[in-house]
């Protein structure tokens, strides 16, 4: 094992960075966010530093600020998948307006095209714009309850094929053993789904399911939380009952704290950064100290949101990661071939196997 004793590290990617004025910086490539090369560069940068995974932000409406436009996150993740080999790929999906059957096969397929590095961040629709774009329902149902049902359906569909369902038995002419394919027969308050999936069980059995705290809490593998101080961490982690807990932080990273703070102030003067997560501006060394202290306080890992891309991503990959490695607290190479493997999670048993 080369993982080290420290926290796991993920990076959240969106547009030109998490700050709404990020696209106005000199090095920003705001028009390129609609092409594949941009995303491939970013993910390869993260992979070169052996980060655990990247998330791709999404929504079902035009972003109100920053880069005004966005591509479908599952497709972006799939596009970079065959051209990367170690890093986990976790697109966000909005479950309020979409079909669990479609998204189940999409994420299973992401797992196939990445050979076991697929995951998903489940999110709910909080914007009236998204409701109007679909026109199927009115704003304000129990979207969290629906998200929990949705995740249950995703997981049942992934399990609906046993791993050895494909038999190719020439003697009887049977391609599959139908006893190993299962109707999921999900009946919920919001929708029902019969199954089985059209897509065989993916390489990880169940791709990694993640969500921000408050969204389908009991059904996810990794929960994102937003502590503002070390003191909040203990109770936050305890409330998650053994699920892996990652803290979200927005980061500005520079060679001096003064420079990082100055850069933040420059961008803040152009647009307001509204952040649920703590905004860190400082050096890689300072961030390493903070992450290690918070890790000791109980967090499994961190999802860092680079304020500006690629500047603050490079601050993470070329500044923070070497700092952590120097302390023996971060891997130097990928020690597993699947995302679950990287996170130390077992391949789940299939619920339908007797």
């Amino acid at each position, binding site marked *: 094992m080369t993982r080290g004793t420290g926290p796991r590290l993920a990076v959240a990617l969106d547009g030109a960075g998490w700050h709404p*004025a990020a*696209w106005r910086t*000199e090095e920003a490539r*705001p*028009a390129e966010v*609609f*092409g*594949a090369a941009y995303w*491939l560069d970013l993910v390869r940068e993260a992979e070169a530093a052996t980060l655990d995974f990247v998330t791709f932000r999404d929504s079902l*409406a*035009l972003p109100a600020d920053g*880069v*005004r*436009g*966005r*591509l*479908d996150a*599952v*497709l*972006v993740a*799939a*596009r*970079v*998948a*065959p*051209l990367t080999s170690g890093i986990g790929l976790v697109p966000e999906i909005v479950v309020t307006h*979409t*079909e669990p*059957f*479609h998204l189940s*096969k*999409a994420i*299973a*397929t*992401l797992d*196939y*095209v990445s050979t076991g590095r697929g995951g998903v961040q489940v999110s709910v629709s909080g914007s009236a*714009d998204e409701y*109007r*774009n*679909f*026109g199927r329902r009115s704003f304000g149902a129990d979207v969290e309850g629906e998200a929990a049902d949705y995740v249950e359906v995703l997981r049942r569909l992934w399990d609906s*094929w046993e791993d050895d369902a*494909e038999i*190719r038995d020439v003697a009887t*002419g049977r*391609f*599959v*053993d*139908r006893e190993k*394919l299962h109707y999921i027969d999900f009946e919920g308050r*919001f929708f*029902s*789904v*019969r199954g*089985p*999936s*059209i*897509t*065989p069980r993916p390489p990880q059995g169940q791709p990694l399911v993640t969500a921000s705290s408050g969204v389908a809490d009991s059904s996810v593998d990794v929960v994102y939380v937003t502590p503002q101080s070390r003191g909040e961490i203990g109770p936050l982690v305890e409330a998650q009952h053994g699920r892996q807990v990652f803290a979200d932080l927005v980061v500005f990273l520079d060679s001096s704290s003064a420079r990082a703070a100055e850069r933040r102030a420059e961008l803040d003067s152009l647009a307001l950064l509204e952040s649920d997560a703590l905004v860190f501006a400082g050096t890689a060394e300072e961030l390493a100290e903070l992450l290690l202290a918070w890790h000791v306080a109980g967090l499994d890992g961190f999802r860092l949101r680079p304020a500006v891309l690629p500047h603050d991503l490079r601050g993470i990959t070329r500044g923070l990661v070497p700092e952590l490695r120097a302390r023996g607290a971060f891997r130097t190479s990928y020690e597993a071939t699947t995302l679950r493997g990287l996170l130390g999670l077992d391949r789940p048993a299939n619920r339908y196997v007797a």
Partner: protein
Amino acid sequence: MTKPLKQIHLAAHFPGVNNTTVWSDPEAGSHIEFSSFVKLAQTAERAKFDFFFLAEGLRLREQGGLIYDLDVVGRPDTFTVLAALAGVTSRLGLAGTINSTFNEPFEVARQFASLDHLSDGRAAWNVVTSWDAFTGENFRRGGFLPQDQRYSRAETFMRTAWELFDSWRADDVLADKASGEFLRRVDAGAFAHHDGHFDIAGQFPVPRSPQGRPVIIQAGDSDEGREFAAATADAIFTRHGTLEAGQAFYSDVKGRLAKYGREGHQLIVLPAATFVLGDTDADAHERAAVVRRQQVSGATAIRSLEQLWNADLSGFDPDGPLPAFDPVVGENTISRGRASDRMHRDPVATARKWRELAEAKSLSIRELIIEVTGRQNFIGSAETVAGRINELVQADASDGFILVPHVTPGGLDEFADKVVPLLQERGVFRSEYGGATLRDHLGLDVAV
């Protein structure tokens, strides 16, 4: 003056859930591992094909109330595979079937516009409708669309998606760092669509994609389907692969274009076609017979017969004679989730014809099914097959073919290595891609 030679269009279909896909062959690989898709797509691109085509599945088929287990079962998500293939190919068009019944226009338009960006202009959408509550059991919408609403929803769905694609102008992304204006006009992407099917309004989040909108492909042989294609599609799939049937279909659909202000080159006619090659024609016919026996196992023969008979025939011997009794008339309940169910419109008459054929040629059930369900279009040496394909295209029986290999994923190799060079020598197929986008390959106008 002789007519100038037409350029042939070729596409590769990744073989899917049907009994023409031979999974029992020693050469057959995985139908689900991504490496299989890469292999077929890269072969198609090496051969300078127009596009790669992937069908869609939304419910596993059933027969007699049980999941159908004799064919390749299971396939990936269309969009996800095509986006991944965009990373390992650079020119090949990427076409996928997406139905208009269990999706919403905003979502599908967003996915196709994203795919077109991520592939630098290579996306194509095969618009289909799903008809049954059986498939609907996997979706929120659930239900069943009556025949008269299927095309109406499909047509409205596609026109709505077009409105979304067209809601951005090519120069709407300004991204002026100095002024802070990202959009050239604040209402870039604005749309509003209200009718009996969709009641939506907002701003579409994906800027104008390289092709303006993806290539639209349509399949459907009914009068309504042909009209729909003539009005809206860039390409049409058909089963009419023979000279006479092909010519009739071709002139029919091309003849419908004028009333929509469109010209002949704006609708590409592409029949699906299978092929078996050999060193000689005789050799190819021998191989074709072997392939047919692989495609129709004894078990497959019985199940195929059940689909016509609408009854459980599991007690019959595939190497024995046909049932003496007639098919069960009425709604076909034996088989679900299969498009061909609707093709047996008069099962008793069909059964009578089959029985006469079997008696005349002394055919067992399996031999009969091999004979009546065979649709091998091109059988012969590479020279013969190249000649036949060219002959059909030059005679306006089609503009090209969507080739369906019977083995995954290497089933196109021999065609790419042997037939394509002959077509190139004849000057009827490209040796290099001329343009960057799928619209370029197909000779279609840029969507404006």
